[in-house]
């Protein structure tokens, strides 16, 4: 997040910053799992949830206390773009930054799909999601799998955070809040547990928000996104591509 000073080349600076912040975030993911989740496995239903809320409050306020509550701004690092089309004097432009975001997202998506569907770790992750106890009985190191999942999640969030900073040029300690709720909305809309569903849900949320901002009102764009969440939960609780959740006793 803050590294990369003293280095003049932009790509090199970005790469170093990305690797450093991914490493730190991975450490955070691991520590959070170790401190706030692992001791609670097998505790009562609400315990991990409350602990998670507590942890998110801790992290947010820790950043606020240590880095201040004001917005931090960054000069655009990847300027410019190119013209896609011009018609009736209107120019449709695509900035390099938007290209970078799309490429990075697609690359990570491919990598992640491969990871979950093709690798032993992915198989172990899916097994743990379905039945933790059974996965453990079958010789999967469940603790290691869950830790790694947290690390991967943290790294993905870091990349998203860097893209956010580069694109919008301004961050504060609170950006994670609405991003988190929207990410969850996207996941629910697409169907929990389905990777293509999450992509579809993310796209849908983004489009709904943009169109809402364009044609209805900008201040209410978060309301629009959150309302989608509520409507989906009422009418299609399993999302667009999810499977119906059958609870076994």
């Amino acid at each position, binding site marked *: 997040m803050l590294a990369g000073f003293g280095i003049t080349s932009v790509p090199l600076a970005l790469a170093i910053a990305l690797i450093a912040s991914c490493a*730190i975030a991975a*450490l955070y993911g691991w520590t959070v799992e170790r401190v706030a989740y692992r001791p*609670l496995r097998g505790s009562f239903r609400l315990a991990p*949830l*409350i602990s998670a809320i*507590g942890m998110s409050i801790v992290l947010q306020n820790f950043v606020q*206390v240590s880095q201040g509550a004001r917005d931090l701004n960054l000069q655009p690092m990847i300027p410019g773009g190119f013209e896609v089309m011009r018609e009736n004097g209107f120019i449709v432009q695509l900035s390099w930054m938007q290209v970078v975001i799309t490429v990075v997202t697609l690359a990570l998506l491919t990598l992640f799909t491969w990871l979950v569907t093709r690798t032993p770790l992915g198989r172990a992750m899916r097994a743990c999601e379905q039945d933790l106890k059974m996965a453990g009985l079958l010789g999967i190191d469940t603790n290691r799998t869950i830790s790694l999942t947290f690390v991967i999640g943290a790294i993905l969030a870091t990349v998203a955070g860097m893209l956010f900073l580069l694109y919008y040029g301004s961050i504060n300690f609170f950006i994670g*809040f609405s991003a988190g709720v929207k990410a969850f909305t996207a996941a629910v809309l697409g169907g929990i547990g389905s990777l293509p569903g999450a992509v579809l849900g993310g796209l849908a949320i983004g489009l709904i928000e943009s169109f809402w901002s364009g044609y209805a009102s900008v201040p209410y764009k978060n309301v629009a996104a959150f309302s989608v969440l509520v409507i989906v939960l009422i009418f299609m609780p399993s999302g667009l591509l999810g499977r119906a959740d059958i609870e076994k006793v």
Partner: protein
Amino acid sequence: MSARPLPPAAMLRDAGLSALVALGLFVVLIGLKLTPTDAGMVLEQRWRALAIVVATVFVGRLLMLQWRVWRPASAPTPRVLAEALQRSGRWVAPLLLVVAVVLPLFSGRYVIDVGILVLTYVMLGWGLNIVVGLAGLLDLGYVAFYAVGAYSYALFSTTFHFGFWVTLPVAGLLAACWGVILGFPVLRLRGDYLAIVTLAFGEIIRVVLINWTSFTGGPNGVSDIPRPTLFGLKFNGSGDPDTFAVFFGVDYSITQRIMFLYYVILGLALLTNWVSLRLRRLPLGRAWEALREDEIACRALGIDVTVTKLTAFAIGATFGGFAGAFFATRQGFVSPESFTFTESALVLAIVVLGGLGSQLGVALAALVMIGGTEALRFVNDLLSSLGIQSDFDFTQYRMLVFGIALVVVMVMRPRGLVSGRVPSVALGQRTEIAAELVAQGRG
């Protein structure tokens, strides 16, 4: 049970690893600080603070490992402690009540003001306790109902000039309606989904309050909200025949109004307590507690889960609405700023720390947390009055401490600091209930 002592080398290695992790975690966020100034970013280096934190982690880990060895085998287990607290609860609760009733008679304005604040949170805590503690539905948007109540009173009183006592039930009713509106979409949801949706709901209400300027006044809020009256007697120094001071032939002082407000919130809080204690004995309350422990078993026993959940939301919301109306009349001013997620988290922390489901625990937690914050502010004032210039702002760390407390309580004592869960209704001897205890064959 004492753990086997580790060899010193292993202990040192363990603590060293913890310190290394801490170093990695904090090297950027504590070691460096970016401050935006007019001339651009200024990078500040704080290696000393970093060293202190890492050293603290190292020593703390060593002590923790040593404590595991030293801890006497006969140390009171949490369960014994909980039982002791339960027994002492019999006289602690009435004692607290007596103190609460006589407090304003013997103290100044500042103490009464703090008392009002604490009681507001006690009431909110008891209200949320119905939803989270009894019915087991994690509601992260409780502040939305608080906001609905506050804005209901503010708008009814400034637009239609309704009095406090007329609007109070209306505010509660409106909040209950919103509780049901929130309840419907989340009926089929499991814990984590429910939490996020309630969180989003709280945000929606706040964003609407900020942006619907023509109705709510937007970020400027609603001001000049009338104060409550005592059977039509106002509390001001105007000398009118319908003021409290003139009617009773006493000199007017502002303390009278503050004291009146104090007793209003005390009454409201006790009403909340009384209603939830009574409800727990009704079939409805028993259904809530059953739902909290096992939803599937509830369905199998023929309990109407829909009605049970909706009533929990509605009744919890009603008390949130009452508290909101009181908040509006006490402040004389409401704005969306008062209804952020932080507030929801604070009330949740009170309920969790007090022990989900425990009335006394929630009251004690509110007293400690809200009173504690005020005490910290007092320490700050004391330091600066002694001439010690400290830029260390304790109140800034409040939420950080609450967050840590949430995690620590869940890890160490998930049933809360005070409560041992005892069923409201039992056949024969009362034993602790909990789904996981049953699963372990101890139920």
